[in-house]
């Protein structure tokens, strides 16, 4: 399982680079990916697209994706605007994400 801790701001200037660098880390043999957005203070539609792309890519290989987003944060509100929170599994702490992923039988993320 891979945990990606992100910080800073994600927009169209760095989204593609971010997508590549995360995708490069997620090899076929890992159980899944936890993207920790706790320290991220801005994400726009380009950043959200990266998350959707990762989600789709992992799903195809039977891997899971969990986002760590503190409730009531800017990122949580942004993801809510486009209903991303419904499509992608969001938790509020990395430990929760890791625990959920480690236990079998969970619904695919």
């Amino acid at each position, binding site marked *: 399982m891979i945990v990606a801790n992100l910080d*800073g701001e994600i927009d169209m200037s760095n989204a593609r680079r971010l997508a590549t660098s995360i995708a490069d880390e997620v090899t076929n043999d890992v159980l899944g990916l936890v993207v920790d957005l706790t320290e991220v203070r801005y994400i726009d539609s*380009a950043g959200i697209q990266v998350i959707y792309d990762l989600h789709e890519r992992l799903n195809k290989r039977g891997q899971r994706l969990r986002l760590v987003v503190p409730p009531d944060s800017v990122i949580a509100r942004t993801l809510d605007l486009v209903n991303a929170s419904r499509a992608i599994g969001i938790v509020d702490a990395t430990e929760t994400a890791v625990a959920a992923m480690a236990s079998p039988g969970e619904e695919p993320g």
Partner: protein
Amino acid sequence: MVKGEGNRTAQPVGSGLGEGQVFLGTGSVAPDTTRPEQVSRIYRLNDPALSEMELEPLLNELLGRIKEILSVDTVAILLLDDKGEELVARAARGLEEEVERGFHIPIGSGYAGRIAAERAPIFIADVDHADVVNPILRQKGIRSLLGVPLIVEADLLGVLHVGTLKPRTFTNEDAAVLQLAANRVAPAIERSRLFQALAREHRAGVMLQRSLLPDRLPELVGLPVAARYFPARDEVGGDWYDVMELPRGKIGVAIGDVVGHGIGAAALMGQLRTALRAYALDGYEPAEVLERLNRLVQSIRGRGMATAAYATFDKEKGTLRFASAGHPPPAVARPGGEARLLETSPGAPLGALSYSKYVEQEATLEDGDILILYTDGLVELREQSLDVGLARLLEAVSGASSSDHACRQIVRDLVPPEGGRDDIAFVALQNAPVPAELLLRLPADPGVLTQVRETLRRWLRARGAPAREIEMITLACGEACSNAIEHAYSPGAAFFEVEGSADDGLVTVAVRDTGHWRAPRGENRGRGLTIMESVMDVVEIDSKPLGTEVLMRRRLPA
């Protein structure tokens, strides 16, 4: 006096006489056989007016005088090329073609080449019978030649020869006079060549230095930057400055001064500037950057020393953090107020100690404050204490209204018009006040988005928007700007504009580009529009042939 001159530069008499050639050594010439009127004229070859001349006019002037003194038809000077392998015709009288055609001959061959190889005078009584390679000499109908080497402190510079159209038997006296003339002009040629070589190095150094300085400063929204660099009058130094956008919306400003002069100093400057930038972009704070830089200087072979100051500015908080490695303190000018120096506790210059700790200081840049970093060439004035220089700097920048204004005032009051003794570099960064009405015009480049957001946040905060509103309106505007950047369609540099106003709690932001609005492609851009529409009360997209305007309004909660 004449004797002394003649003996000091006496040359060995050459061996291997050829037919029709007479070898003469200056050492064999007794000064008392030199005609007095010729001697006084030769001395005038060395008059002070000649020492400041460029090489070509100097040579031409000398040739004219020699031609007259010896009553000859031709005079030519051939100088050794930079590799020391060939003689190249550089100036001539009566033999101008030699120079025009760029006549050159290897040392050892031909007439001039043999003089150079033998380092001794050679007289040819009749050119037709001698080994003369140069066809110009034959074509001209020159019958007799006398040539001497040009030597300075045992270094061969070239050859000076004279010729006549009628057969003439040059006497030992003629040879002595010519050698005396050669001994007189050789140092002038050497000086002029050294001067030109120095001028070349200076120009190369200035070019190197310029190429190592930022070719343009970043255009930072709300943080106008200006800088100037003046190379030293005589020798290029190792001053540098740099301004860079850092992660998390901070700005880095650096200045430095490599101890020493010349191309070596400029080259070390280039290394330090690049290294500082690399550490800064990695997000290290000022003290850490200087510590790393000091370690780097230690590792450079034949390392030098440098002073440097580095500051990071967090524009959202208005806080400045800075550290200094033996560098003079930063100045802060306030429009309509007094300028002041920031208190520093400078550590050792870079490269001075194998391990240096640097102390970081913090200061606040209020709205409008201008930070000025400079090198000591600006404040170290001849015969005056550093305090006087610093006071003059503060006086010069007092009342400056912008970064560029501060720079112009410094140039006017402190930079000597003819250049300083030392390099002078300075850079100014203003924390420009947030205007009530926002108007940004920016290149259509994704890299500007961070700045747009920071400016919007500052502007919205100044308009009294609560934190949550600031983030959401910034998000909506960010989406509109991303669209503008994506759609900007122009063969040259494309720009887009952001205009903002707030009236009685109603925030209006317009984003204009010069491209065509395109229907959102894929979910990504569709989400962008969704975000704009969910955040703002009103979103109007007005697409015209010459550009698209996205107008958004939102009423702030009471």
